């Protein structure tokens, strides 16, 4: 048989994703799984998945998982990690989950320097519930709960989560990445890997924000969605490493 140069990572079950065509969730799942494979920690990894489009991620990840309540994944992960300090614990969260209802939990997990990793999927909208405004929805962006466009005068400007968490000592690694093209995918994977390594070396909390598309609720084709992300999200949410123990910025 032919040698296989690229295949599904072991940490991903061989089942189809329920995500919409072109949704970046699938790519991000795969990157996480690849990192876990490469770090050889599948055997001691416990994933905590959110309420959001990735609510069924426990069907996809091939390691132990917990399904947390909406927004509370960092608290749940804290409970897990404190019971098994030698395990590798991560949360996978959307922007509604992490930045809206779960704002206190992520801030405090970061402040505590909780030794967990967070993969934060920012698609500027609530996917699962049908396209409502998120704290990360861009100004003027139309969603079903900002039908006249997000009005910063009434609801403020979007929250930049990385920048906010960077003010907390316990957060040791903070990066914002995207998976809009192969080069950025490589950087994204490197950042996710780093975020797991930080945890494994016991340094503290690490988070990687991944800019992501929601073609369905943005009302675009997958390719249009990528272009929209590049044109609209990237300027407001600059990619880069905001904090790292090596002190490398950007």
């Amino acid at each position, binding site marked *: 048989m032919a040698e296989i140069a690229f295949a599904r990572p072991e940490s991903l079950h061989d089942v189809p994703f329920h995500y919409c065509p072109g949704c970046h969730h699938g790519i991000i799942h795969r990157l996480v799984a690849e990192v876990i494979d490469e770090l050889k920690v599948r*055997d001691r990894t416990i994933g905590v998945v959110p309420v959001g489009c990735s609510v069924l991620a426990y069907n996809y990840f091939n390691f*132990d*998982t917990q399904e947390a*309540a909406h927004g*509370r994944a960092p608290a*749940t992960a804290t409970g897990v990690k404190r019971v098994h300090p030698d395990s*590798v614990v991560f949360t996978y969260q959307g922007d509604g989950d992490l930045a809206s209802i779960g704002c206190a939990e992520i801030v405090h997990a970061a402040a505590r320097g909780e030794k967990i990793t967070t993969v934060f999927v920012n698609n500027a909208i609530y996917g699962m519930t049908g396209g409502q405004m998120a704290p990360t929805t861009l100004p003027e962006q139309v969603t079903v709960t900002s039908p006249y466009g997000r009005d910063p005068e009434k609801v403020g400007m979007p929250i930049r989560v990385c920048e906010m968490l960077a003010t907390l000592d316990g957060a040791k690694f903070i990066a914002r990445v995207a998976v809009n093209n192969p080069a950025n995918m490589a950087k994204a994977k490197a950042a996710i890997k780093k975020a797991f390594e930080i945890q494994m070396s016991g340094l503290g909390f690490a988070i990687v924000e991944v800019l992501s598309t929601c073609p369905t609720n943005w009302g675009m084709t997958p390719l249009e969605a990528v272009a929209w992300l590049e044109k609209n999200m990237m300027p407001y949410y600059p990619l880069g490493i905001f904090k790292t123990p090596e002190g490398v910025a950007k």
Partner: protein
Amino acid sequence: MAEKILMKGNEAIGEAAVVAGCRHYFGYPITPQSELIEYMAKRLPQVDGVFLQAESEIAAINMVYGAAGAGARVMTSSSSPGISLKQEGISYIAGAELPCVIVNMVRGGPGLGSIQPGQCDYFQATKGGGHGDYHNIVLVPNSVQELVDYTILAFELADKYRNPVMLLGDGALGQMMEPIAFPQGAAAAPAKPWATTGLRGRKEPNVINSLHIQAPDLEKHNIHLQAKYKTIRENETRWETYKTDDAELVLVAYGISARVALSAMEQARAAGMKVGLFRPITAWPFPYEALAPLAGKAKAFLAVELSAGQMVEDVRLAVNGASPVYHYGRLGGMICSPKEVLGEVTKIMQGKEGK
């Protein structure tokens, strides 16, 4: 059993948890249970346990979810408003069938209310403060020694049934001191092959979850839960009776009120009235079947509780119309005295019953 020591109720719960093998506690301060969180802060590090003050009650209950799902014997505690905040989390824990112990040292409500003792969270604890068809096992101790004993039992039952167990006390029980003795330990936690510990060689990943996205699946899960609740009802219903054999009037009371009622009963007996006391020890499952037969014998029942009338509904459900059921309650943090209860008893015995 060791030498008797004098301890506050809240602290006794903490030590009992340690005796029961609890090594993880997540909580948030609130009067009148703060002595418990403070005890854990001091005590758990001494036994290599984990104490963590959560950022909120919500975070605390979700940490409990995580820790319980990871296989630990874990506890949280709070008082009324904080317990309300935990309701979503409790429903998740019940749905995911995780064992844990939740302590509510009830205070006067509603809202911010007062910091004085109350029993006005009975409905919340027993009928479902959270959403969905689920039940906590609810233990209602009435002395500091019982706080100890039932804290230990709580951990055992939680593990046995993979179900949240609530210890429903009140500010008075939590803050009073009585002599107690601690048993040597609790039943060891059973194996938890379902826990998310990391695979560690296991083949199939474990998933802790309360989502069943297909309604037929969720119905199946609910039927399983209801079957479990039935087993618990059959095996774990607990109560105590005092002089109910010849009682014409049966007082029904739990927790601190049961002590007041006991005093009132003794005084009534002393005055020649045939009064007995029925004391539920599990509020859920409520001892309907134990109480029902008394309805054939007693002429009336009087529920005594620090609420506007919550447990009395369970008494009515048990008595099922066979005898009149009266209610006497104090509200908003006030505790009733034996004398007041005696007054009610006398009225009923003389046929001048109140409400």
